[in-house]
């Protein structure tokens, strides 16, 4: 063992024995952060939670069910635009969020019906085409969508709330709670029979069907879950930034979302937050070489896939459990 490995192992064994304390300290840190961080940094951390949510739309279908879905960006956009159109039409923001989730999940379900007839790379290409068609369609109907200039988003909560608490603090706590709840939900779901059914259709569809797992139904379910998750993230993202436009939801966003899933670990639910942190915070840290941002991302993606197949989450889990 090299010196580095010894140090890491020693640190990990210390961390193992103080797990509860560490978790407590982490929770406390997350709670007081809004009073410590500058507001721009707080906005970034809030965005990490948004991408943490989004990463589940890669983890569930790609990591667990083995369905190559590349239209997360479009689902994210459908959630965001639904929220904006509904609140602009007079629905209170807090009611628009669940509607947006249902609309996006419904769209994903409808897309999933024909799309899941195909599998493997075919499914990837169909969903990629859907993502591009969605972005082009946003540009083609400017009267409804605001076209390429985009559209302003109403607030999520009544103005009275923001008079009392600054909006960035509100959104920080909101997304922290949303992420923690969604994470706990997925940890439970993926550890249950449904998670095993997903893994078994990824491993071998024929065998899975022979033991009574309805592969088509579970593949559709993974689609719908991805849609619902992106819908939630989108409907929270629109009021968070106050402004949305087609380029936010193009293929490169789908890729950022999948990247967050892969870097965090596609089979490790808690990995999503680490992957999201890398995807959101790394570009900021790399601002001094911003021209090379994509090169760094590309190399990072390749290195993680080759040398860290279970991502950061898997690496940490192996050392802390």
């Amino acid at each position, binding site marked *: 063992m090299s010196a580095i490995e010894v140090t890491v192992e020693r640190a990990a064994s210390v961390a193992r024995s103080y797990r509860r304390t560490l978790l407590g300290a982490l929770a406390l840190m997350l709670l007081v952060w809004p009073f410590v961080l500058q507001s721009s940094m707080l906005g970034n951390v809030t965005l990490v939670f948004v991408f943490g949510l989004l990463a589940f739309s890669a983890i569930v279908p*790609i990591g667990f069910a*083995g369905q*190559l879905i590349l239209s997360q960006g479009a689902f994210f956009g459908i959630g965001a635009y639904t929220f904006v159109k509904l609140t602009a039409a007079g629905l209170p923001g807090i009611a628009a969020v669940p509607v947006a989730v249902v609309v996006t999940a419904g769209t994903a379900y409808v897309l999933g019906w*024909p*799309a899941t*007839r*195909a*599998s*493997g*790379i*075919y499914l*990837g*290409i*169909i969903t*990629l*085409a*859907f993502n*591009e*068609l969605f972005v*082009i369609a946003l540009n*083609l109907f400017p009267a409804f969508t605001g076209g390429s200039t985009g559209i302003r988003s109403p607030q999520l909560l009544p103005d009275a709330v923001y008079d009392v608490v600054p909006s960035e603090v509100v959104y920080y706590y909101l997304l922290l709670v949303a992420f923690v709840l969604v994470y706990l939900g997925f940890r439970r779901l993926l550890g249950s029979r449904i998670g095993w059914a997903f893994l078994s259709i*990824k491993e071998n569809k024929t065998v899975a069907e022979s033991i009574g797992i309805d592969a088509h139904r579970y593949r559709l379910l993974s689609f719908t879950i991805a849609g619902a998750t992106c819908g939630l993230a989108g409907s929270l993202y629109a009021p968070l930034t106050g402004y949305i436009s087609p380029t936010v939801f193009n293929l490169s966003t789908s*890729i950022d979302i*999948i990247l967050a899933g*892969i870097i965090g670990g596609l089979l490790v639910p808690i990995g999503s937050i680490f992957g999201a942190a890398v995807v959101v915070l790394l570009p900021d840290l790399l601002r001094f070489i911003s*021209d*090379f*941002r*994509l*090169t760094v*991302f*590309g*190399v*990072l*993606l*390749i290195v993680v*896939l*080759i040398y860290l*197949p279970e991502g950061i989450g898997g690496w940490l889990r192996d050392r802390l459990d």
Partner: protein
Amino acid sequence: MAAIDTAAFIVVNGLIFGALIALTAVGLSLIFGVLGVPNFAQGEFAAVAGFTVVGLLGAGVSLAPAIVVALGLSCVLGVVAERLTIAKLYGRDNFLLLSFFVTFGLSLVSHNVLRIAFGGFEQIPGPQLGSIALFDFELSVLRLVAALIAVVMLGALHLFTKYTYVGLAMRAVSDDRQGAEMLGIDYDRISMVTFGVGGLLTGVSGILYGMLFTVYPTLGVSLTAFAFTIVVVGGVGSFTGVIAASLGIGIVETFTATVVGSEYRFFAIFLVLFLVLTLKPGGIGGDVDVGH
């Protein structure tokens, strides 16, 4: 008569465009068919080859040696990419997903580096060959020669996979990897050759594309999108299906660009792709199960 002229213009230019992108599509189909790698970086070979020619011409090298160097480079890059990344993934679970995202990473690196090194749009000044009159429009001879070169390359590939030892070995690996290895076929070598040939074919398409149109840093991504559409519509593993789909997509592309407006090109292409795949998930000429 104008309608017929327009129709002829669309068909002729569509076929020429189709022949060029067929070279990229056949490279993609070869790599996917033989190795099971959905190579998202396929179009990058074209962009790299095109920009290499641009760069060498700028440095004072004349056209012919510049083309030779660029093609050599795209072939070598194919092998290097395979050795450095894909070769480390053989035998892993979920090889399809892993190799797709790894090649996606390669594509990010490639077009980012090209943008920094070369910037924007560049055209390769091809040889002056004059033009001929066809119906009511002028057709440059260079376009015909480019299409002819593409056809010759496609024919050569067909003969290569049908009659040479290496070509037959590639097809054997594509049919049954373990069986082929049992017969003494070296999988690593076939894998390198496949990437080299795939890179070379696509490199040719990039240089021809640069002469007839322009090269730009994200050309690779556009060509990959076209190539995936063609391979998927034509059916994986079907050589004739891919050629037919290339010509069809070429005509759809030219029709949309001429009649509807060039900003709708990708909308039309993706619409065709989306419709074909949802109606016939295995493509027109293919079967869903190709063993990958």
